């Protein structure tokens, strides 16, 4: 297993390199630059700015310089927020996005998983239909509708929770954003879980287990669930990477200082280094979580072996 992990680690390097290279050049194809704005800059001033950030250098040189800095762990300055380096922005925002994303994922897995199991056991009964209805609603109502509804209900009408802000990380500030992030994931997990449980319950080994006279609980938890959980695991990997790198919608509506907004804002602002930094972070997390999924697979399913 260790050999496998090491191999995967080394194979991630060319992947990352490709991602960085493609993103770098794609970003530069977009017209306009970081210093184009409604109030046009004096050409002398603009030249001074471009010189300061080496944007006056040929593109290949900028690319090599970026790679060199990246290898030394330097993500560069942010063009649009010059008081901060890209690394500083991530240091401040990433822990917040991770907290929210991880909590939302755990909540989605527990609640969604439980709902899925219940639905599969009560197939075609009222409780099954209600779970399906909930799951359909959860995955079709967009976040930008759910978030303001939660704000109106719990922030204004009942005034139980703050409408927005991070409040230094107080629990009350986290509840609504976590629920907003978790709901669509919960719906997907519930549907996946229901489907794979139904399939698992129909399989030969479950029939055998039942024939052997094992208790219902033992059949479901020990045997059916173990097989049924695999699709959830493969779904949870990429979902985790997406959740913990933040959501622009949730972070903007709830005024959360995470990193979710940097990708879109960075791209719109042509803040090249910020976009590149975000790409690197998302890529690293995606690669990491895919690796974790593969390791979990081997642990859960004895038929999977990597050595």
């Amino acid at each position, binding site marked *: 297993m260790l050999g496998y992990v090491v191999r995967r680690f080394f194979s991630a390097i060319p992947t990352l390199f490709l991602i960085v290279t493609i993103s770098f050049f794609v970003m530069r194809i977009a*017209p*306009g630059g970081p210093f184009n704005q*409604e109030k*046009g800059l004096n050409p002398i001033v603009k030249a001074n700015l471009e*010189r300061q950030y080496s944007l006056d250098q040929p593109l290949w040189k900028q690319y090599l310089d970026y790679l060199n800095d990246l290898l030394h762990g330097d993500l560069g300055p942010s063009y649009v927020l010059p008081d901060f380096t890209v690394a500083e922005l991530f240091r401040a925002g990433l822990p917040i996005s991770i907290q929210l994303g991880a909590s939302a994922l755990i909540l989605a897995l527990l609640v969604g998983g439980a709902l899925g199991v219940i639905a599969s056991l009560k197939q075609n009964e009222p409780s099954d239909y209600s779970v399906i209805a909930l799951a359909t609603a959860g995955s079709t109502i967009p976040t930008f509708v759910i978030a303001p509804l939660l704000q109106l209900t719990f922030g204004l009408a009942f005034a139980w929770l703050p409408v*927005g802000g991070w409040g230094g990380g107080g629990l009350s500030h986290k509840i609504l954003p976590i629920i907003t992030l978790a709901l669509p994931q919960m719906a997907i997990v519930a549907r996946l879980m229901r489907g794979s449980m139904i399939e698992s319950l129909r399989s030969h080994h479950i029939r055998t287990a039942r024939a052997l006279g094992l208790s219902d609980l033992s059949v479901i938890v020990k045997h059916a669930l173990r097989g049924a959980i695999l699709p959830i695991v493969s779904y949870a990997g990429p979902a985790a990477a997406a959740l913990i790198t933040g959501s622009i919608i949730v972070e903007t509506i709830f005024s959360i200082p995470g990193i979710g907004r940097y990708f879109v804002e960075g791209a719109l602002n042509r803040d090249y280094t910020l976009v590149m930094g975000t790409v690197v972070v998302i890529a690293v997390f995606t690669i990491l979580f895919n690796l974790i999924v593969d390791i979990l697979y081997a642990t859960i399913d004895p038929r999977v072996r990597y050595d």
Partner: protein
Amino acid sequence: MKTFFRTMAAGLAVLFMALGSANAEVVYNRGNSADPESLDPHKTSTVYEGHILRDLFQGLVMQDAKAELIPGAAESWTVSDDGKVYTFKLRPDAVWSNGDAVTANDFVYSFQRLLNPETAAEYAGMLYPIKGAKEVNESKSSPETLGVKAIDDKTLEITLNAPTPYFLEMLTHQAAYPINKKNVDQFGADFVKPGNLVSNGAYTLAEFVPNDHIKLVKNPKFFDAANVEIDVVNYIPTEDRSAALKRYEAGELDSNDDLPTEQLDEIRAKFGDQVHIAPYLGTYYYTFKTDKKPWDDAKLRRAVSMAIDRDFLAEKVWKNSMFPAYSFVPPGIAGYEPSVADYGDMTQIEREDEAKKVLAELGYGPDKPLKMELRFNTSENHQNTAVAVQDMLKPLGVEVSLVNTDTKTHYGLLEQHGDYDVARAGWIADYKDPETFLRLLVTGDGSNYALYSNPEYDALMGQAASEADPAKRSKLLSQAEAIFVRDTPYIPLLFYSYHNIVSPKLQGFEDNVMDVHPTRFIKKTS
């Protein structure tokens, strides 16, 4: 026993009340549309930064609650007879937050730094009226040659190229604020970080968490600290205007500087006089590319401009959050009378008939429709405006096609003088003077997206620049604007307004055309 508990309870209650009032620091949670790009005054440009920096720093002159000019770090000043030399006397008691005296050399250092090309200051161009400024910024001469000299510790002399009547107004802009040299030498670029930043204004920087809040606390060393009532001001970025309004309603914000204007009717009904909407010095306009056929024809441009119904745009599209514009310079600048297009007085039907007649004279008609590509940067309101204009020009036989791109692509194209017929743009005044608008149409200006070039216009602007008499200068500028109206390189569509929502707990948040509200003049009752 009962009495004992009662006494205890009463005692505790009194104790808590006493503690409460002793600690009752006044906190103002102030919604601000966006985080600042930077807290280094020399690297900023936007109004969001202006609000914060106005609390942190004191320029030579400042603005009061009504945006009127007041002494800042300078207590008085004199202007030479030819209007070119300004001599400022600094306050004897002005100090930095680290205790250092604010000296004339601080300003010499700051102006030199602003214009030094290595600083790459966006607003360096604003200070080109200072002698030698442009040459320094172009790397043609060294920063020491700049016309800003310290006569002694408390006397500063600034020499200009020409009498510049708006010079003092210009100095109220954040780019003209001083910074502390020792502070920059010690921390380099990190001098702007909380804990490092030394400032000379009513507040000092305590915390800056990007996308969360900026906390400023009252500066006890500020010369007028005795009259500053708000102890803590938290600037809270509110990108999502609808969410910000909910936070305001929940009491999490005491004011916000923007509103979801699409819901303005409902908001007005609900919040009444907490909504502050009034004209602001800014113009929303469409620019023609005047060096491209057929847009090089002033008659054609004027006809298109004439046919657009500004009242409809202001009322229906912008829900009266903008005002109809018939001149480029908005009203509200004391001593200046904008030159207004004569068709402003005609009815919409008369204007359409007149425009049709002109287009027919120029050979356009059903057989030869005028084709016009209208570009705008992505925004729901810009889109709605463009669709309305498209519809208004249809009866005239003008076929308008719409092109929508993101802001950077849009302004990148305009700046590089790419291929466009008509494009949207906007301009917000940096200081209260018509020059801040009219200079955009001088040949070769960086923001002259019309590529307009008229020697007559340039000559009038040049004369105005060297005219020391304010009344004569104002007249020259008005004449220049009359040429603008005749030639119509831009279609002025709407004047901006500011849209603040302000809690009844705040006093001293006064409406003014610059939308300037220094926290030191605001009071908050609980």
